[in-house]
């Protein structure tokens, strides 16, 4: 009898152990998929709480601005975004999860910012918005925000494959006087402190993001330029092929993780 009880206890302990293990693997809940962890999980409790609360998250202001711009008529064609795409919460849902993507007309990748400006110069016959200025940032945030919570799911095979490979090569190529690649930090040392900051896995699925360091929302290409300058390398231009390819690779690194735009980061 006692023997049976012991066996039962061991069985129970093992079962609990397994439950515990499963619980441990999902320590970060939806912000972790396999060994991929969102930059969210490397931030402080306070920063995470601020992102989680839409009334405190300073990036939400751009969602509102983007919403206002969505139905603003501009350009010679007398159209707004809504003229073609109606309700963004329906038509833009999922878009943020699959960009950048291959564009047949261009023969290369196109990201959200570039698609917005394609619509402006083509359908709307309006002037393109400038990179890193309020309107383009707000619209990009607004579009990606429509996919908030959806898993990042960029296409990296087929026509996108050669651009994905270029992005990956960029990520792993040393550059600048400090002679570091993106991977030197973000592959080898995520979760490790450099001074007061903590390195993430270098993904980029939730950009444009509000950075405390910037005290404003910025694009992923601004972040790329900042990293390149920090290793004392000549940065590329906003919207350059190099950065759009890198954006695809960074997006793939976040595959399966939920889109957080507007995220909050250091």
């Amino acid at each position: 009898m006692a023997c049976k009880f012991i066996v039962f206890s061991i069985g129970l302990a093992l079962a609990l152990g397994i439950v515990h293990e499963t619980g441990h693997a999902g320590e970060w809940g939806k912000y972790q998929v396999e060994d991929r962890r969102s930059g969210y999980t490397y931030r402080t409790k306070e920063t995470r709480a601020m992102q989680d609360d839409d009334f405190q998250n300073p990036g939400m202001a751009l969602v509102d601005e983007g919403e206002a711009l969505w139905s603003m008529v501009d350009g010679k064609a007398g159209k707004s975004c809504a003229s073609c795409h109606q309700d963004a919460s329906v038509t833009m849902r999922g878009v943020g999860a699959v960009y950048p993507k291959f564009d047949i007309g261009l023969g290369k990748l196109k990201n959200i910012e570039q698609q917005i400006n394609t619509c402006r110069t083509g359908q709307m016959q309006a002037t393109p918005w400038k990179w890193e200025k309020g309107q383009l940032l707000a619209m990009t945030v607004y579009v990606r925000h429509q996919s908030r919570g959806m898993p990042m799911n960029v296409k990296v095979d087929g026509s996108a494959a050669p651009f994905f490979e270029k992005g990956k090569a960029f990520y792993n190529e040393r550059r600048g006087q400090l002679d570091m690649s993106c991977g030197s930090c973000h592959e080898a040392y995520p979760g490790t402190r450099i001074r007061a900051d903590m390195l993430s896995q270098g993904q980029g699925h939730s950009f444009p993001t509000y950075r405390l360091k910037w005290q404003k929302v910025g694009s992923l290409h601004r972040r790329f330029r900042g990293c390149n300058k920090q290793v004392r390398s000549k940065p590329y231009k906003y919207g350059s092929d190099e950065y759009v390819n890198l954006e695809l690779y960074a997006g793939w690194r976040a595959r399966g993780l939920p889109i957080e735009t507007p995220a909050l980061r250091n």
Partner: protein
Amino acid sequence: MTHKFVLVTAFLVALVAHGFSIANAVESSKIVQYVVVDEDSLPSLNVPAILQSLTGKKGDPANGRKVVINRKKGNCLACHVMPISEQPYHGEVGPELNGVASRYQEGELRLLLVNAKFINEDTIMPAFYRNSGFNRVHKKFKGKTILSAQQVEDVVAYLMTLK
């Protein structure tokens, strides 16, 4: 007239080409040449080393400590914990440097600073005394080393105080 023009042009081309070669020569000769000694030729070493001071002078440990802290110079605290308590938040990427002088010899530390890739080609640690062979360097830093030869010596001298 045409003939003269050709001659002048040829002279200018020669001058420009010559100027370029001078510029290149200056660039690579700007850094002090050094000799790397490996463990095979000097068995008392654990890793390769540069035995001679780059400047022929002794380093100044007090200035070395300043260079170590300065974010635009050594910026060593970005990656290493060091016994510099007035500076908060030391990085954790590299090994702690407390006691580093009992683990390495002076010449070994000098090479680790000059170009740690002699010892480990995959290291993230920048080469602090190298001015060429980089990819897409920002123009502000082209042809330059992160630290001067004397600054390297000063940092070596400082690290040697960390017994």
